[in-house]
């Protein structure tokens, strides 16, 4: 029996380093996300709505919020936009839930781990796919709005630059929280729908009961359970708005703590995954 097969050539050049390999995962991941209608719509609509809402609130502030001084604390209102919460949750859920779960489901993880990368590289790459996309709704509107406001002369550049800086920080905090939580959920199941549901549960399943219970029992500290309330508390402190029901140190600790714990747990989980079945 004869088969005539062309021979393949030897690879002469040396391999590129870890940075290149991680970037390959990121670009491929982003490209594949932007082929999915769900992802495109979510990112597009989310960015549009959150940005539009923020801008509208800037221009109609005098009417919508009578008595609100037009200083730094004004931008707290922009940050407290519930559309941000909704779309961040949606993004983390639609895009984040499948990032690891799909690789577990198809067992493509075996291929990744047989490559010269570490578990850490893999997770960094996955996070780097998710973070820019979430920041389109969590950071971008918060940064664009003050900028526009300054351009139109509504606020001084001094205030605006401060606002932009603060927006970056708290936006990043919210992004990191949701990125780490959704990646963790994505790593513990093969079905991304479960992970997606989990992300929604973290937002609404914690926030809504917390709000209701705290009203019912008049116990404000129950609001610490809600990631949104924690975020608002930190935003208030950052922008110098008047104090709210919970204090920012505890809120910040919770948000940071969960982010770190979720990241660690994801790493530990990845290292333990039985990738090669016997």
């Amino acid at each position, binding site marked *: *029996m004869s*088969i005539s*097969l*062309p*021979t*393949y*050539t*030897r*690879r002469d*050049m040396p*391999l*590129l*380093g*870890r940075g*290149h*390999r991680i970037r*390959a*995962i990121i670009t*491929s991941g982003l490209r*594949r996300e932007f082929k999915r209608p769900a992802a495109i719509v979510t990112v597009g609509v989310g960015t549009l709505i959150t940005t539009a809402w923020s801008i509208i609130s800037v221009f109609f502030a005098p009417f919508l919020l009578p008595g609100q001084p037009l200083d730094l604390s004004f931008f707290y209102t922009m940050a407290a936009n519930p559309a941000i919460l909704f779309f961040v949750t949606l993004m983390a859920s639609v895009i984040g839930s499948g990032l690891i779960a*799909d690789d577990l489901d*198809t*067992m*493509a*993880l*075996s*291929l*990744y*781990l*047989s*490559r*010269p*990368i*570490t578990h850490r590289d893999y997770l960094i790459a996955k996070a780097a796919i998710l973070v820019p996309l979430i920041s389109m709704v969590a950071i971008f509107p918060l940064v664009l709005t003050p900028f526009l406001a300054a351009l139109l002369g509504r606020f001084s550049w001094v205030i605006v630059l401060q606002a932009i800086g603060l927006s970056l920080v708290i936006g990043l905090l919210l992004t990191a929280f949701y990125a780490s939580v959704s990646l963790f959920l994505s790593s513990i199941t093969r079905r991304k729908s479960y992970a997606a549901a989990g992300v929604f549960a973290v937002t609404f399943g914690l926030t809504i009961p917390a709000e209701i219970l705290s009203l019912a029992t008049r116990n404000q500290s129950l609001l610490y359970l809600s990631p949104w309330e924690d975020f608002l508390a930190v935003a208030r402190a950052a922008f110098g708005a008047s104090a709210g029901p919970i204090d920012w140190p505890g809120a910040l600790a919770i948000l940071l703590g969960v982010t770190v714990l979720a990241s660690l747990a994801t790493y530990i989980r990845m290292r333990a995954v039985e*990738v*090669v*079945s*016997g």
Partner: protein
Amino acid sequence: MDDLSVAIPEGAIGLVGPNGAGKTTFLRLLLSLVRPTSGTARVLGRDIQDGVPLRERIGYMPEHDCLIPDMTGVGLVTYMGRVSGLDTNTSMSRAHDVLQFVGVEEERYRKIAEYSAGMKQKVKLAQAMVHDPELYIFDEPTTGLDPRGRSEMLDLVRLISNSPGRNVILSSHILPDVETICKYVIILDGGHQIAAGDMSRLLSGATDRLRIDIRGDPEAFVRRLSEAGFETEVSGPGLRITRQPGVEGAVFQVAKALGAEVRYMGAEVRSLEELFLDLVARTDAGGG
């Protein structure tokens, strides 16, 4: 795995063993995906603790499904090449080359979800090859393939293992495949190595006997040969005769006399399967 000591030479090596023998664990160790609880191991001259540099030089074809269904064949292979460290152009070029080599033609532009089982196996092989590793690990490469697919896959494995400077570890339940392709074999059972060595040396069985397959009356054949002084017995579909000078000539004489046909005459070679079953029966406590 328990106290496993092996030394694997270059070339094509077979890895066989019953389920639960530790083959998968062994392969994962080679890929540096698990750490040994004790002991050391070196692969391609490096300690297995250096996982990343080691995996630059290893290509792994897993047994299970592992492809990303919504990517195209060439897309996936290019991607994996880049994740191994090839720059985009080199990776794309090599991806096309290896897909050609394994026999994936225009299908490479279609999504993997639409591929047949044979095509998927070929893409799995292609992604293991794209970065030109020195060591290939094939885990049950012919699973699910029809006879033609099996034969093509085995030819590819053979071609690769005959390439100078390239080594192949073939882990398979289909022992005749291992027998034809590998020059060296390691047999595991219960986490230990129970045999290892050159295939031809391990299998050179009783050279003192001749095996023949005939068409005709076996009983009469045996009788005539015994009368002529040759120890003969019926064995399965054929006969086994203790070698003595002139035995082959005698066989043909008896055949002519009886009007029978000789359809096979050759050494009594033990197959890998027989060796395997013998060894495992000896060491195995049973069960399962």
